[in-house]
């Protein structure tokens, strides 16, 4: 099983994506999609870091919904900042101490931080385990760090058990 499908979840996603973008679902598209879904992980899995196991799938769905909601709310706040007078901005670099060690999970956290408007992951320092974050409008740095750790890092550690 592992030899034919090194990453079953990735294969499933590729197949679903192929069916979704196909002009009309048909048996031929399914066969072609399956072949691609098996072939791509063969070639790419040596480049992947060992992905950690998903321990709590329900928590993952909850986190996904929370991130979607935060994107909407933060977008409105940032739109307000962009359209308002520019002296209201307080841009700042923040050093976020990381408790996550796994590269894949840390990447997920960095991506979530970038996608929620108002904050942007700039760089990661693996030795000091610090994530450099740029924030568009921050006055209370410890509170901002606490929010990110509580809302995103803690659930991620719970989901992947690390």
């Amino acid at each position, binding site marked *: 099983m592992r030899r034919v499908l090194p990453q079953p979840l990735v294969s499933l996603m590729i197949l679903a*994506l192929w069916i*979704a*973008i196909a002009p009309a679902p048909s048996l031929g598209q399914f066969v072609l999609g399956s072949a691609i879904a098996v072939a791509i992980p063969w070639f790419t899995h040596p480049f992947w870091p060992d992905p950690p196991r998903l321990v709590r799938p329900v928590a993952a769905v909850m986190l996904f919904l929370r991130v979607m909601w935060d*994107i*909407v709310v933060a*977008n409105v706040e*940032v*739109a307000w900042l*962009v*359209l308002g007078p*520019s002296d209201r*901005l307080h*841009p*700042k*670099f923040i050093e976020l101490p990381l408790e996550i060690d796994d590269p894949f999970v840390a990447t997920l956290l*960095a*991506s979530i931080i*970038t*996608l929620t*408007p*108002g904050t*942007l*992951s*700039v*760089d990661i320092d693996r030795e000091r385990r610090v994530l*450099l974050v*740029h924030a*568009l409008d921050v006055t209370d740095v410890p509170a901002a760090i606490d929010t990110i750790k509580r809302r995103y890092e803690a659930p991620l550690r719970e989901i992947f058990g690390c």
Partner: protein
Amino acid sequence: MLIEIVASVLVLLGGAFTLVGSVGLVRLPDFFTRLHAPTKATTLGVGGIVAAGLVQSAAAGTMGLSELAISLFLFITAPVSAHLLTKAVLKHRDPPAG
């Protein structure tokens, strides 16, 4: 009728956020603050338009999931582009302290 209203509102929201993203690109004072602007256009701008398309095709009875693929792709690539850009800039400038 209700579906048309929902789709129209989503389309207008998507257009508005795309516009706000570009206004930010012009108005914001330095590179790092400007980098925040396209993240908006990607997430809610294209996202709103894609959501409108989904509502429309669901109402027409054809489940067009294909637009979702574009949104998914942008959600995955946007953080990577942003990170590459910051890396390229930090190579030439020092990160401003504080």
